[in-house]
């Protein structure tokens, strides 16, 4: 330390933070690879997978549904206002459908799950780390990657597209309710316009995004929980980091995937 001249200290700290960032990226990648690798060969823990499917998927439905219905309704009002500025209020159903299926359905479902699921995973695995249950598991020659990480990864990847599909339908229904109840749209015409306009790829690209977001959510939850340290405070820190990093990665991945889908 002492042999580094004072003038080079800033450089040193920049280099250190870059190396730290690289190391974190490498650790997360290796963690993900180990998690996926654990899926590829037995033993599989189907009971764990089933519990995660219920916990992550089914019990997230209320949150995702509520988010979707209010977003669809607000989106409908805003697009109606915007369309009205050039006498195109009538294309509102199509724009709402496109916005929900391509963007808002997957992203909002993923953000709600990042808050609900990523945090829960980080807290649960973090608490197991703090109470040395993970070490005990290794002693009993149960691979924590197989027992804890792999079922969570797989369950979230399976469940996210299904939740997004529900969010798509409920979001469009939210727009439909506002349009028919307050904006004098005809319900049947609204639905027909939506069906005629929507293409398979609009929905499928959203579901692909959702699966990727699902992987990010579970990976961040498991990674931060597994690597937590320092008892109860460490668990709290792991939870925060899991949610924040999952949300940031979701937005980044969303842009990358959208641009890949747009220029294909």
């Amino acid at each position, binding site marked *: 330390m002492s042999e580094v001249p004072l003038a080079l200290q800033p450089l040193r700290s920049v280099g250190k933070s870059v190396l730290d960032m690289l190391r974190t990226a490498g650790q997360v990648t290796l963690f993900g690879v180990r998690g996926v690798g654990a899926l590829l060969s037995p033993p599989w823990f189907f009971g764990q997978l089933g519990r995660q499917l219920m916990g992550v998927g089914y019990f997230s*439905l*209320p949150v995702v*549904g509520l988010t979707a219905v209010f977003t669809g309704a607000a989106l409908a009002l805003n697009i109606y206002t915007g369309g009205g500025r050039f006498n*195109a*209020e009538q*294309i509102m159903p199509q724009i709402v459908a496109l916005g929900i299926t391509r963007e808002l359905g997957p992203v909002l479902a993923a953000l709600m799950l990042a808050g609900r699921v990523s945090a829960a995973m980080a807290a649960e695995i973090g608490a197991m780390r703090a109470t040395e249950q993970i070490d005990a598991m290794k002693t009993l020659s149960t691979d924590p990657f197989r027992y804890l990480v792999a079922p969570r990864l797989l369950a979230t990847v399976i469940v996210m597209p299904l939740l997004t599909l529900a969010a798509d339908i409920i979001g469009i229904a939210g727009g439909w309710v506002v349009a028919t109840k307050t904006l004098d749209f*005809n319900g*049947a*015409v609204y639905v027909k316009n939506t069906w005629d306009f929507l293409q398979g790829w609009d929905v499928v690209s959203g579901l692909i995004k959702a699966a990727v977001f699902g992987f990010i959510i579970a990976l961040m939850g498991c990674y931060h929980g597994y690597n937590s340290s320092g008892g109860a405070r460490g668990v709290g820190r792991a939870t925060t980091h899991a949610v924040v990093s999952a949300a940031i990665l979701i937005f980044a991945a969303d842009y990358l995937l959208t641009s890949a889908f747009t220029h294909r």
Partner: protein
Amino acid sequence: MAKEQWAETAVGAVVIAAAVGFLAYSLTVGGKTGGHGYEVKARFGQVGSLAPGAVVSVAGVKVGTVSSITLDPKTYLAVVKLDLDAKTPLPADSVAKITSDGLLGGQHVTIEPGGSTDNLKPGSDIQNTQGAVDLFGLVGQFLRPPAPAGGASGSAPAPAVAPDAKAGAGA
């Protein structure tokens, strides 16, 4: 814990039911009619993007909906069935028009009441109709005049396209 799980299970079921219900509604819609009212037919040469469920209005006030659109295989006219409210009898010589909400808007049927003392009977035809206006066809005619103007008009593909435009206008 079990109690909470029951509440969450119930709410989850409600969410799924709402999604499935709306999906089912959206798949079955269009074949449905109002049921209480009377039905009249109108034949149009061109219905454009008119859809079942579209509004039928008189003076801008809704009096019914379009219940079905079929093609008459003999005359090649579109037969539009209108489901009208029983509270609004309309004169037999009324005119049915297909109009648009805006430049990009959805299309609906407007009825201009006539002066006859007889009213339209359930199941009868509206004799006077005016179909949808093909706005882009009209614009196209202005942009590419159907008469071959020779080399002076400038654009090379114009003569090749002009007969098509003429045929479109004639149909």
